[in-house]
């Protein structure tokens, strides 16, 4: 067991996978010699050679498109889109191609690719380095969508993603790269080395895709969150003193509906939290599912806490970000409803 940041855990997942399977290749902008702008791929080129870990031209569609071709050949490409905000040029390749190749060819060709991308705000990235595009992927049949909230999960889930026979979008909350974050930007960041989930096995292990984790057991209200918002939700629960159950989805597609239904059926109340914008965000899907499956157990309307329906601002980042105060108010609202 080692203490790892999420960056190190992500790197370790690629390292372990490349060591076990020579068909795993890693590429993307700046990922080779330099090791990526967040250093997630640092050392991989030196260890595995430049034909297994290399720099790509600044062409996201080219990165994903060539990865699809490599997968059709029989490789397992794990590519990096430098920021989730830059994946839009690759959207056609992801949604019309990667997601559909197995289906349209009836399995004659498959597309086992992983597309990693740093996501979310909280690092003063402004409107072009802070986006959370997960709902754009969860709407696409054929893709899998993962958002880890800690180093242990990040490594285990990324190994599963690389070993998965289908295309996986792996969104890494960059606010969590170096430590957990409770939404209080003025406080110093706690490093992962002081958190139990920073204990990460050095070798191979995997976490099944499609299984949520209950981060805090509670009986008064269910909070559904993922990524950075898991930590914000935990902080809000602690500050309000409300006995909430906090679910970390980890995998948005496929979704662990069973865990959600079991929890909301028990608590009768639900708050959904995400960083992405409200309208047509993934929270809408979660609320609809809770309504469909738990309607007769609900004692109050489900409350959503999300980013605003605006681009992510630079200077007002902390007013945009759904912090513990907003989540706390939502918890109170759900309890009073």
């Amino acid at each position: 067991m080692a203490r790892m940041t999420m960056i190190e855990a992500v790197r370790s997942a690629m390292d372990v996978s490349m060591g076990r399977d020579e068909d795993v290749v890693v590429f993307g902008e700046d990922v080779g010699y330099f090791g990526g702008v967040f250093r997630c791929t640092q050392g991989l080129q030196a260890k595995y050679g430049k034909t297994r870990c290399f720099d790509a031209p600044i062409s996201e569609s080219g990165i994903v498109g060539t990865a699809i071709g490599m997968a059709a050949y029989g490789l397992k490409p794990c590519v990096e889109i430098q920021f989730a905000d830059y994946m839009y040029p690759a959207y056609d390749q992801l949604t019309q191609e990667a997601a559909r190749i197995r289906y349209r060819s009836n399995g004659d060709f498959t597309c086992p690719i992983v597309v990693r991308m740093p996501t979310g705000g909280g690092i003063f990235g402004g409107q072009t380095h802070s986006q959370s595009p997960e709902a754009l992927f969860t709407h696409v049949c054929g893709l899998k969508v993962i958002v880890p909230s800690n180093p242990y999960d990040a490594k285990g889930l990324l190994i599963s993603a690389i070993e998965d026979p289908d295309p996986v979008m792996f969104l890494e909350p960059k606010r969590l790269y170096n430590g957990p974050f409770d939404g209080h930007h003025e406080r110093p960041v706690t490093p992962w080395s002081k958190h139990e989930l920073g204990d990460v096995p050095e070798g191979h292990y995997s976490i099944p895709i499609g299984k949520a984790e209950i981060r805090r057991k509670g009986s008064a209200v269910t909070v559904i969150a993922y990524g950075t918002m898991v930590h914000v939700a935990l902080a809000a629960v602690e500050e309000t003193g409300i006995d909430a159950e906090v679910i970390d989805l980890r995998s948005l597609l496929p979704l662990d509906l069973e865990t959600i239904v079991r929890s909301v059926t028990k608590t009768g109340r639900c708050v959904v939290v995400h960083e992405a914008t409200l309208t047509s965000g993934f929270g809408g899907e979660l609320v609809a599912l809770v309504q469909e499956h738990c309607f007769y157990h609900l004692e109050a309307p489900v409350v959503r806490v999300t980013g605003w329906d605006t681009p992510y601002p630079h200077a007002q980042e902390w007013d945009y970000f759904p912090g513990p105060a907003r989540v706390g108010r939502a918890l109170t609202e759900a309890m009073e409803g």
Partner: protein
Amino acid sequence: MDEFSRLSLHVPEPAVRPGDQPDFSNVKIPKAGSVPRPEVDVEPEAIRDLAYSIIRVLNREGEAVGPWAGLLSDDELLTGLRHMMLLRAFDARMLMAQRQGKTSFYMQHLGEEAVSCAFRRALRKGDMNFPTYRQAGLLIADDYPMVEMMNQIFSNELDPCHGRQLPVMYTSKEHGFFTISGNLATQYVQAVGWAMASAIKNDTRIAAGWIGDGSTAESDFHSALVFASTYKAPVILNIVNNQWAISTFQGIARGGSGTFAARGLGFGIPALRVDGNDYLAVYAVARWAAERARRNLGPTLIEYVTYRVGAHSTSDDPSAYRPKTESEAWPLGDPVLRLKKHLILRGAWSDERHAQTEAEIMDQVIQAQKEAESHGTLHAGGRPSVRDIFEGVYAEMPPHIRRQRQKAGY
């Protein structure tokens, strides 16, 4: 007074429109045999002219001339002629089947048969094509079963795609034919990725990407050229310039560049233009490019200059945007008739044998069609199961799709 007048936008127009006399005076056609054949390891800079000329082997008399000639035996040429005739007969029957309501849609190859049929013969087993919807000749020339193609077109119970794909969007890993996408140009960069993978694994197989002249305007075309050039991928990048992108003439996508092939030059990729209606020239250039790729010399860009005689698809009416007689005026002729003439000149063929073969091929296609139709057509007979809607989205069916399948009653 301002020295500049007001600006105006330039919107290119074809030389003629319906009702006008066809005019191909802008297509500069060099004499057959006049374009040199460089060594495969030539520096791209040294052959810039080949991106602006047209490599031709068959002259107007039907003779094979020049440095690109002499690669194919009589038997190989007869096989090529048969493939093109088979594709033409297949097209004719499937077009009729669409008109009879047996399928929703069809896209024919009329006038372009030489491009894919000859190209396939320059590849080896195991090589991979990333085609568009107008390269069924790649399958025909690789002896893919015609009944399977028809099953796909009819979306019947034996359709290899289980009714999920539009007609003509075939797939065959075994025959080196990547599953066709309706989204344009996406496959071009995928071909480069496949070729890169082959190089990463120190394999001997190569890839070929296919695109139409209109789709070269897509950003994936440029991404493919960047990646192919950067990593010297063992890939052949094919542009089929058939003059028309549905109703839009090729001048719109081409912009100010002299030719489509010339776009390769800026990437340092050897670029050649070839007479796409000349089976011998297509084969010769494809083999040159394949040898380059196989010798690890990197990508080659090939522009096939041809003409789409038929409609874009069964949903298209070309008489609305071009003169009805334009195809007859196309200066590079008909690929089937040109090869036929050449073989007769070689003493390997005759008008009688051609007519007899034409009848035999039509019989063969009709027999295949009967067999395919016995397994159903789009609106009649056997069809894929509704259960197939839900299968194969993922390797393992996730719970939400299983719930939906059960809701649908399967």
